């Protein structure tokens, strides 16, 4: 009865699914999957069909009539399959094209999701539980699957207990969200169940209902024990013990879900009664045939009982459903606390390291559905803020005493680290002035930098004033040029002054020559390029001035009453002062006074007054070592003379 997975939509598939349904429902596990060798990929086990018996979040049915439990279950599995296919097709318009009664992602519980994702799995020979079971042709039971290594079983979030049974050219996998110890009997049960024909959960309650009803009433605390102890007993014992429910039944506080399911279960229950009879005998016959071949003589009894259990099961399915809900939520919720479907399809999964396939599938599925919003990422974390409300009177934290903005300044300004060992491409000479090795105390650096900059500015100004011969613009040469220039200027000033004084007699000539001289002077001062020549010519002039006194500079100082002429000549220690100025009272006295201020001893004085003009010649000698320059003497004399007028 190996089913071709390609023909999954055809009728022959249905019996398989029904069989899966029957199997899983009878043992009350959460799901059953049949993996068969894929036609597309030889040697690989792929999803063939499955039945989901776990808890369901939202039911969507088109019919108004309530279906039987098995039919509902089948429909649910079908819907899940459709959902998977539509999601994996990845069409963004899926939402539009899916019929409204079909499921959408938010309608599923956790376990349904995982079940859905299982549809994408494939196993090669020996890979995973199904692969191993297939390879060894032996059933594999994994309890406490959530602790299993992901290499063994990677879908541990779906089920805590998984049994894989090689069967009919494929692997039958059943899982439940509870932890169940390995039980060979259950395995046999499963395989035996699988031979059931289409109408699965028909109960022969007439046979055993009273008994079952009684048993059902027990709210057993020790059912657990019975259940586990059952696992240890061998098969025969199972037949002896009435099978109430092999798994623990706890009484739970009524919940909505449970009640809803309960109602449905009751309806189904009533449906059950009227069903099944036609196929019953057939079933029994078949089973008996099968069981005979297996040599389990007493199984028929078991079967009968277990058929009775179906009723029990359906009655108890409400409890089981609620139990599985709670179990599922507790099992699964530890890992994904928030309903992952509540917020924009963002799956918060705590995935094992090797769970990439799972993750990818989920991711693919979710990606094809609504887009992921970013904000949901942090919804998990408590909404408590780290910040406190600010108050005025808050006491200060320990006051900060270090260098302010230390790191920031280091980042922006110092650049020490840049210079520190490695200097990639920077030239040495062209370092900008502001970018130098600083101390670690950045305040100093800054004031240093400021003063440096001021200095540099002033150097620039100086450079512009000083005519420098060479092109070198470093500070040392600027200063050197300045010194030279200053000296030069001083000299020239002296010479010019003395030249002027000595040429007092040559008025006319000098006056004529003035413009030339002036021109030459201005020439010299004016253009820097000619400076070299200018200087030389100037010095030549000076020399001639000194020597010949033929072309002298004249310094005409005009006063109100007439020209004042002061000539001071210095020959070694003797100073000759010639003065021509308008006469006034006490002038002579003042002149002599000022001359003596210069520590000069007058040796002889010649004076005459002609037409109100005083002509005075004073010859004097320096009294002490203090020597005044002729210019100074002249200027002071001029002042004296000029002031009284």
């Amino acid at each position: 009865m190996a089913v071709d997975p390609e023909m999954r939509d055809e009728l022959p598939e249905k019996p398989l699914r029904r069989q899966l349904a029957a199997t899983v429902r009878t043992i009350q596990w959460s799901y059953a999957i049949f993996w068969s060798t894929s036609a597309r990929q030889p040697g690989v086990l792929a999803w063939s069909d499955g039945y989901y018996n776990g808890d369901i979040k939202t039911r969507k049915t088109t019919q108004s009539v309530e279906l039987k439990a098995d039919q509902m279950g089948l429909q649910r599995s079908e819907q899940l399959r459709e959902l998977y296919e539509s999601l994996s097709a990845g069409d963004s318009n899926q939402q539009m094209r899916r019929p409204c009664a079909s499921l959408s992602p938010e309608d599923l519980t956790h376990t349904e999701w995982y079940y859905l994702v299982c549809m994408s799995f494939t196993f090669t020979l020996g890979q995973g539980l199904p692969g191993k079971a297939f390879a060894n042709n032996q059933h594999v039971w994994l309890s406490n699957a959530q602790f299993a290594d992901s290499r063994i079983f990677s879908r541990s979030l779906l089920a805590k207990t998984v049994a894989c049974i090689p069967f009919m050219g494929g692997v039958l996998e059943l899982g439940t969200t509870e932890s169940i110890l390995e039980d060979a009997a259950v395995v046999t049960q499963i395989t035996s169940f699988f031979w059931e024909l289409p109408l699965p959960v028909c109960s022969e309650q007439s046979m055993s209902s009273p008994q079952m009803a009684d048993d059902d009433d027990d709210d057993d605390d020790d059912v657990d024990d019975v259940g586990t102890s059952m696992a240890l007993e061998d098969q025969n014992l199972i037949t002896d013990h009435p099978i109430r429910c092999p798994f623990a039944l706890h009484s739970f506080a009524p919940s909505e879900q449970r009640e809803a399911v309960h109602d449905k279960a009751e309806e189904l229950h009533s449906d059950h009664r009227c069903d099944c009879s036609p196929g019953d005998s057939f079933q029994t016959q078949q089973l008996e045939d099968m069981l005979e071949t297996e040599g389990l003589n007493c199984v028929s009894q078991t079967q009968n009982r277990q058929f009775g259990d179906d009723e029990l099961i359906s009655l108890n399915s409400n409890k089981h459903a609620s139990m599985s809900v709670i179990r599922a939520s507790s099992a699964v919720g530890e890992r994904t606390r928030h309903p992952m479907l509540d917020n924009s399809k963002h799956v918060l999964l705590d995935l094992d390291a090797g769970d990439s396939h799972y993750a990818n599938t989920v991711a693919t599925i979710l990606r094809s559905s609504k887009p992921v919003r970013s904000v949901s990422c942090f919804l998990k974390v408590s909404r408590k803020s780290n910040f406190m409300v600010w108050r005025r009177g808050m006491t200060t934290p320990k006051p900060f005493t270090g260098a302010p903005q230390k790191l920031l300044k280091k980042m922006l300004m110092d650049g020490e680290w840049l210079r520190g060992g490695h200097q990639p491409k920077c030239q040495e000479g062209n370092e900008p002035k502001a970018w130098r090795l600083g101390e670690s105390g950045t305040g100093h650096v800054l004031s240093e930098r400021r003063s440096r900059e001021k200095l540099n500015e002033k150097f620039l100004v100086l450079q512009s004033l000083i005519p420098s011969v060479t092109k070198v613009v470093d500070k040392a040469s600027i200063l050197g040029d300045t010194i030279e220039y200053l000296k030069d200027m001083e000299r020239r000033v002296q010479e010019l002054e003395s030249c002027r004084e000595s040429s007092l007699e040559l008025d006319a000539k000098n006056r004529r020559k003035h413009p030339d001289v002036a021109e030459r002077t201005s020439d010299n001062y004016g253009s820097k390029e000619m400076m070299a020549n200018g200087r030389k010519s100037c010095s030549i002039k000076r020399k001639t001035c000194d020597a010949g006194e033929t072309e002298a500079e004249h310094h005409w100082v005009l006063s109100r009453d007439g020209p004042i002429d002061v000539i001071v000549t210095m020959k070694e220690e003797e100073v000759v002062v010639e003065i021509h100025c308008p006469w006034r009272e006490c002038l002579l006295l003042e002149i002599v006074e000022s001359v003596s201020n210069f520590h000069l001893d007058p040796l002889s004085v010649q004076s005459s007054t002609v037409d109100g003009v005083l002509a005075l010649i004073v010859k004097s000698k320096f009294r002490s070592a203090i020597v005044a320059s002729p210019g100074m003497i002249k200027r002071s004399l001029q002042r004296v003379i000029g002031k009284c007028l």
Partner: protein
Amino acid sequence: MPMISSNPPSGGNKAQQQQQQEEMESSTQESPLNPNAFTFDLPHPVYAMAFSPSPFAVASSCSAVAAASPRLALGSFVEEYGNRVDVVAFDEDALAFRPDPALSFDHPYPPTKLMFHPSPLPPLLASASDSLRLWHLGPETAELRSVLDNSKSSGYCAPLTSFDWNDEEPRRIGTSSIDTTCTIWDVERCAIETQLIAHDKEVYDIAWGQAGVFASVSADGSVRIFDLRDKEHSTIVYESPRPDTPLLRLAWNKVDRCYMATTMMDSNRVVVLDIRSPAAPVAELQRHRASVNAIAWAPQASRHICSAGDDGQALIWELAAAAAAGGSSEAAITAALEGIDPILVYTAGAEINQLQWSAAHHDWVGIAFSNKVQLLRV
């Protein structure tokens, strides 16, 4: 203080109790045990920090969780050539940081700034130190994609103090340098788009306002706005009151482009400016007890700004709309006289050197102090 790398959140009650306790004592001791602060320790101090823009597409082979959660790029500060940039993801399941060693890379010189490409794809990270570098954070490894070098023929490279990636025109990155220039790069062509001499002295920070408008602050104490359409002229929006007090940091409000904020050297003030009324600041936020190191506007709200400084405090301020008007309301007068008070405060244990407000997750703020990085929830 114990160095914990992940603080699982306890129930809300505990945090609340602790907060109440703290409030009652009205002291601001450091809150390292705050259950909602997530701390990441590094072996070296961190300066540059960047948040990734938004969750990356679930395309990589690594688990869906890591790809969807935000990533932080952290640049080290070691005063030598060899530095590192670490890429760290925040795992909201384990509620811890998860460094991604495959994506961490060596970096020459401490990066003065790190920034992700404004859109999640391509996953590019830019860093600036001696030049601008673009790194591609692939699924497996990070690789250097390009080096945008400012050197001209002389081969001289002036260190970059900061840069900003233009949100509206992601081809543009503007860099600021100590050679007084700002350079606008076209990162797709890896070429200079334009270069301006922005200031008289070193430029310390730059921020984009619109696609063609940026502002910069400098050691000459001025905030200038430049428009790329008119490169000859710039507008001085503010000058520091004491002349030549360098302005160190600049942040332009991305929501309301009229406002920008700047900090001065050795100053505990954050100056908030309205570019429509230059030279008169809207507000001067003066509640820090030491100099301010970093500022960040809230990415979604137009009136909130966060600042952090050497006093170890991160303060969140709310600028009232009437602050600019300066009307006769009492609040305005009080504000004018005494300055605006912040609304929220967080106290870290040491000087906070860096502050970034995540643009993708609006209620998360990252701070860096000493060797730690903390994610704080607002």
